């Protein structure tokens, strides 16, 4: 009888801890619509700009400048993300700040490094075309969205699925138009994901305020 109570106590504590942790994580990610919007704009501007500058524009033929172009855009997006996150963590508890820092360093940083490693294969291995760079990067990023989506957020899961499938199809069928297709797919997809996330978050907040 006592053993049964103890077993139940362990199970209950486990369930409480799991639900509290999941809810805290979900709270963190469900307010992150603006981050999704920033990276959506990054994809739209980045890919369409690349098309304009390098296909018909002034940088035609100067492919080495692509690295500089994407680095500048990435730095702007990272700075904007940092500002959004900073404005949000001000009101968060120390525990939630910890979730973000752990989430960022243990999740996104390794994925970004992986994307860079795969991209470097395209540059250093002559058999793999540099055209595959965005495909590799976006496959890795989509995998990141899929993992986060599975764990926390349905909208991000949807975006991850569309992104992953879309990138594979583009890689096989529309490689010459990859910048346009992927720019639109990830740009519009991430902006819509961010807007839906923000809308849900606002509704939740509105309910709490009027409660």
């Amino acid at each position: 009888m006592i053993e049964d109570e103890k077993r139940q106590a362990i199970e209950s504590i486990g369930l409480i801890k799991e639900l509290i942790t999941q809810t805290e994580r979900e709270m963190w990610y469900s307010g992150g619509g603006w981050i999704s919007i920033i990276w959506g704009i990054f994809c739209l501007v980045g890919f369409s700009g690349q098309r304009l500058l390098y296909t018909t524009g002034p940088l035609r033929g100067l492919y080495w400048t692509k690295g500089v172009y994407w680095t500048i855009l990435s730095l702007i997006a990272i700075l904007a993300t940092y500002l959004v996150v900073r404005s949000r963590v001000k009101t968060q508890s120390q525990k939630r700040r910890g979730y973000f820092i752990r989430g960022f360093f243990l999740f996104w940083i390794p994925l970004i490094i992986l994307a860079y490693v795969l991209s470097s294969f395209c540059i250093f291995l002559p058999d793999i075309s540099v055209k595959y760079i965005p495909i590799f990067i976006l496959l890795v990023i989509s995998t990141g969205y899929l993992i986060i989506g599975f764990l926390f957020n349905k909208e991000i899961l949807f975006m991850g699925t569309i992104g992953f499938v879309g990138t594979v199809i583009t890689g096989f069928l529309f490689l010459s138009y990859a910048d346009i297709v992927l720019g639109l797919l990830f740009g519009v997809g991430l902006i819509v994901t961010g807007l839906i996330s923000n809308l849900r978050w606002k509704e939740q907040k509105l309910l709490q305020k009027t409660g």
Partner: protein
Amino acid sequence: MPEEHIAIKLNKIFHQKARLGIMSILMVMEGVEFNYLKERLKLSDGNLSTHLSILEKKKYIKIKKKFVKKKPKTLCQLTEKGHQAFVEYINNLEKIIKSMPGAERK
């Protein structure tokens, strides 16, 4: 028999998986919508309503119905009494676990 004593003190209202889930989520979020709880805990409308009513009768939660953008919404909020009762419940669970033989060694 201190172990038996702690076990008896456990609040039986929370000693149910669905209600334990509801209370755990409400401990984190200030207010939660009915459909959110339904989705998170994978419960039917009727089942969730029953559990919420039990918690509401004990004054552990408050349930408010309101309209947001012309759509009816049901909001569940934890009361101070509910918060205290659940914290006490968690403390008692921990006491039971600590009273296990060899628990200190772990």
